[in-house]
């Protein structure tokens, strides 16, 4: 039986700007207040089947819900899964291929209609019909993959999802064990929508919700409003019912304007990063209103392991030695980051700190000479937005210093990942970063560095990292559903093998971010979840 996955010790690395740290629970004692005004970044969609940005995810934490969700608390415990719409955690068969859920009784959508077990199947099938970015997560469900699978035909039903509305049961059958299946079921793409919800983007026609709030309106690039769900009746006792009666989000994408909006008291919270230029001011003048945290992310340089010069391990080691990680944190990131040589972020129980590549330019030059690749041209790709632009210019500068001839290609964010994910581009090196979808090593190593998943286009592994022995180990670990200390050690070895033994990639930092509040907010209620970020539902005002 698949046991409950141990709670991840994902330490947020949160650090106050000098103010008091929140209590561990971060509870507001159930107090409510009338209005929360937030300055927010633009969400991509406001439809749970489509959105894939933190801006949308964090805003709608309390709107649409799934069978499972995360515990609303601070610290490592916030990575723990708890039943939301499900009555309890599922019953899982011994082979890990069959999961059975029972829905809570009397669940209702915000429009008053009943939540049915068959809505779950409809939700997943709708994801496929609207080409949701999350469909890949459900490929292990029986009846999804293959030439006659639902992913291809989009007709009939997914055979691996069996529901009984009367008994409120949902059975999920898998083709093979999937170690992270419970986390996948907590993703937004599995958040319930009523059967019959149109299979098209419903961002501006709010879909009825099951959480404590509902989306009242959304004007793309302008604003969104959340109000209390009139039919909620505390139907999910494992999550808070929310403190503000209403949340008004003003979409301000310019970080300076967003910051200024909080300083001037027009907003209570700045979702955007406080600009590096304003950080010293924020730290000195508004230290009690500033919180700095490091969530689960890794910024790294990919090196194309398939083509010269980086198909040579010495050349890859040279780049690892040529990067002064602390210098990047200080420069383009203004200090907002923690240097790393690991691919997996700190806080994961599988994390074992790597310190093999101490900055050593002389050694890097020597390795380049030994590799016989000195003088080669390297096409380096990056985005033209800070801080990624600064970090890629730094890489180009260091490549020049160790004997290569870098040719920099800076692209807009909108086309960047598509470009480097296309094998025809033949990117030899470049910038990329990853923020976890859910707290499981598979979301890192399988998605990003498993050589068996390299594709011609939309490749998530632009470095074409393909180490057969490691691929085999990832595939083996994928089938293990229980993360015991021994399994965690095996994941740590995967990290070490890929980053040190084969030096496939150059991770350089875990980026830190800011939460900035107006003086109206009571910071003693500040709660930061490693998965849900700032938990606005348990915030409070003075």
């Amino acid at each position: 039986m698949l046991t409950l996955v141990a709670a991840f010790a994902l330490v947020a690395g949160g650090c106050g700007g000098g103010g008091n740290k929140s209590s561990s629970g971060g509870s507001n004692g159930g107090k409510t207040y009338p209005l929360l005004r937030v300055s927010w970044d633009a969400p991509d969609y406001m439809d749970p089947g489509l959105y894939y940005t933190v801006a949308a995810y964090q805003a709608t934490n309390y709107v649409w819900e799934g069978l499972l969700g995360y515990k609303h608390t601070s610290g490592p415990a916030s990575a723990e899964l708890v039943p939301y719409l499900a009555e309890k955690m599922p019953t899982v068969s011994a082979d890990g291929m069959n999961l059975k859920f029972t829905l809570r009784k009397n669940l209702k959508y915000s429009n008053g209609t009943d939540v049915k077990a068959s809505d779950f199947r409809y939700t997943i099938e709708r994801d496929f019909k609207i080409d949701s970015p999350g469909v890949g997560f459900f490929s292990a469900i029986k009846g999804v993959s293959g030439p006659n699978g639902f992913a291809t035909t989009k007709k009939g039903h997914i055979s691996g999802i069996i529901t009984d509305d009367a008994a409120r049961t949902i059975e999920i059958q898998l083709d093979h064990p999937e170690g992270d299946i419970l986390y996948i079921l907590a993703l937004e793409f599995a958040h319930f929508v009523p059967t019959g919800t149109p299979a098209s983007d419903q961002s501006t026609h709010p879909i009825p919700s099951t959480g404590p709030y509902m989306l009242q309106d959304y004007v793309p690039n302008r604003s969104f409003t959340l109000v209390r769900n009139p039919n909620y009746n505390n139907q999910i006792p494992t999550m808070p019912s929310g403190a503000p009666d209403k949340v008004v989000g003003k979409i301000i994408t310019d970080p300076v304007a967003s910051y200024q909006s909080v300083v001037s008291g027009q907003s209570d919270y700045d979702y955007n990063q406080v600009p590096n230029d304003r950080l010293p001011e924020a730290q000195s003048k508004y230290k009690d209103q500033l919180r700095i945290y490091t969530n689960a992310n890794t910024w790294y340089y990919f090196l194309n392991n398939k083509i010269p010069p980086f198909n040579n391990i010495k050349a890859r080691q040279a780049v690892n030695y040529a990067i002064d990680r602390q210098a990047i944190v200080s420069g383009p990131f203004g200090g907002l980051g923690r240097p790393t040589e690991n691919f997996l972020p700190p806080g994961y129980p599988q994390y074992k700190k790597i310190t093999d590549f101490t900055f050593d330019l002389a050694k890097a030059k020597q390795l380049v000479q030994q590799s016989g690749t000195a003088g080669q041209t390297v096409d380096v790709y990056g985005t033209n937005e800070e801080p990624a632009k600064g970090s890629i210019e730094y890489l180009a500068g260091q490549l020049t210093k160790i004997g290569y001839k870098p040719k920099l290609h800076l692209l807009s964010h909108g086309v960047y990942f598509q470009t480097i994910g296309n094998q025809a581009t033949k990117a030899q090196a470049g910038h990329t970063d990853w923020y976890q979808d859910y707290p499981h090593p598979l979301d890192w190593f399988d998605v990003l560095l498993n050589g068996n998943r390299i594709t011609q286009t939309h490749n998530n592994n632009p470095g074409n990292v393909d180490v057969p022995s490691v691929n085999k180990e990832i595939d083996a670990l994928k089938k293990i559903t229980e993360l015991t200390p021994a399994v965690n050690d095996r994941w740590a070895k995967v990290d070490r093998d890929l980053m040190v033994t084969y030096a496939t990639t150059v991770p350089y930092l875990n980026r830190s971010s800011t939460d900035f509040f107006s003086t109206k907010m009571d910071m003693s209620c500040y709660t930061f979840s490693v998965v849900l970020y700032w938990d606005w539902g348990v915030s409070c005002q003075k």
Partner: protein
Amino acid sequence: MATESTTDFTLDTAAELASEEHGAIEGKSPWLLAWRRLRRNYVALGFLLLFVAIVVMCALAPVYASQIAGTGPNEVHLGETFTRDGEQIPVVSKGGFVNGKFVAGGIPVGPQLWHAGGKYVFGADNLGRDVAVRLLYGGINSLKIGIGSALICTIFAILFALLAGYYGGSVGWIISRFFDLIWAFPVLLLAIALGTALSINGFHHFGINIEAGSLWIPTLVISFVLIPYVGRPLRGQILSLREKEFIEAATAQGASPFRVMLSELTPNIASSVLVFFTLIIASNILTEAGLSFLGAGVQAPNASWGTLIADGQDRIVTAPWLAIIPGIAIVLTVLSLNVFGDGLRDALDPRSKVRIER
């Protein structure tokens, strides 16, 4: 953009000329007369000198970089220090988490003038690159693009104006509609659209291969979008000249259209072309700065004054010199060209008919 004369400059009177020639008035070429007028315009000559000084300083960038600053324009110095008065100073302030407490960093060192032996005279940027070195190299790129695009734009404008003005008819109609088509778009928007599209993959058509990031991209884009702004007024002048007796005489003597255009029409628009050329360099430097500021011009890591301002805007509070210094460079260059151009126009065309309307 309309350039207005700021100089009170009048035609030479016969008396003035006579006085200069010690009583005897001799026939002088228009160019000599223009030079006489120009040399008395000390303001214009002063600004010409300033422009020449800027060009010379930029041309000496490699010497400055290697002999004084000791660093290249794209050489990053993150995590490094330099010596000032015997003290080691970090090029970019260190930031991060020290004992769990966050320290804001990334503030580059400010202008050192000559206190650091020629290093970081105008400070460093957020990657620790020497701003003075990048300013001079950026100046080379800005001037190359400004002058190069002005040259290409003027050559094509003359060509189109001669063809449209001399032949008229369907040739004139096609060229005029081409001018109208470009004119219909706001200059900067059209330039951004073209610059952005070309800066991704470069230009690889009709046997022409221009790589992404090449200076040819902003140069050609700016040339293209400004052609009608020079071509239209020149076409007007050609239309007027075509009706003159000397053209009729040349045609009657059997001169070919090519000869008429080259030997009769072109010399008669030369003064206007010269003025246009001077003024449009300034205009093009500004356009390049705008394009590069918006990411559609010179591509990183190469610098231009526009990219330097763009890089500096993120640090406008903590390191204002990053944007101010290249801003001053642009102002001085454009001002010097505009004032000199006005003086040149006053000298060549005292009735001030020539204007660039944008």
